[in-house]
């Protein structure tokens, strides 16, 4: 029995406080994933809290034979993010990227400008492509796990990532080297 399975078992047996260990372990990736999907750093923690509460409520239905806890948790976070985007009608363009501060050194200004371009390209992706890229590139999840979370085949995940990277590459046109 893994340490995580032991924690889940303890929670299910009535040791509610043990759930804190799971929250502490996954709070950062879940908040980060939501922030990058919904493109709003102000509400991402509220949404993440809702995710953890939903996880606690649904914990009796978690089946370790079907998926790992992290896959199950990320799937709930993914679904919640989709609902938030739909409900609040957050536009795909999201928050405007921060404008470069012209008092900074030239290198930093160029870097900021390129980051702004990448941010815009990321925001212009379709929700599916964006989610897939976030899970693969920012969360470093394996394709198999992403496919489980998204409920699609690995081939679809690879294709989404290729397309998303192509869009990001286009945003950096004119700069040497490849992504």
């Amino acid at each position, binding site marked *: 029995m893994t340490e995580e399975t032991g924690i889940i078992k303890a929670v299910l047996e009535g040791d*509610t*406080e043990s*759930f*804190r260990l799971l*929250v*502490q372990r996954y*709070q*950062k990736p879940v*908040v*980060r994933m939501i*922030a*990058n999907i919904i493109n709003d*750093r102000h509400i991402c*923690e509220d949404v*993440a*809290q809702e995710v*953890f*509460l939903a996880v*606690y*409520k*649904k914990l009796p*239905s978690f089946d370790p034979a079907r998926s790992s806890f992290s896959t199950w948790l990320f799937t709930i976070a993914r679904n919640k993010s989709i609902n938030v985007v739909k409900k609040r009608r957050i536009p795909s363009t999201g928050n405007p990227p921060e404008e470069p501060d012209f008092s900074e050194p030239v*290198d930093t200004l*160029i*870097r900021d400008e*390129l*980051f702004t371009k*990448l941010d815009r390209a990321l925001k212009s992706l379709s929700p599916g492509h964006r989610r897939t890229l976030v899970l693969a*590139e*920012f969360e470093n999840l394996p394709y198999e796990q992403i496919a489980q979370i998204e409920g699609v085949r690995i081939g679809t995940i690879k294709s989404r990532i290729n397309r998303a990277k192509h869009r*990001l*590459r286009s945003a*950096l046109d004119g*700069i*040497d*080297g*490849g*992504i």
Partner: protein
Amino acid sequence: MKNHEVYESWRQEKHQIDVSQNFADQVMKQVYQWEQSRKSPQLKMERLIELISFHPLAKTGLVAAGAVTGIVRLIIMIQAILSNGVVNG
């Protein structure tokens, strides 16, 4: 700065995020509040909706009941229309 270097440093920046120090406390507060409401003897409407939404069988039952009600109503309506048609015709 090359393309892949820009991308890598952007990726690193996206990977960094600060979570409030009391985040876990906030979650646990909500968890305990929910546990409290669950233990309360009154079965509130919210709890009933939650129970239905978290149990696939309950959801299926509810949808089936709705479908049966709809079909019964449809049959009654058709019967009424046909009987009116017979009376009038």
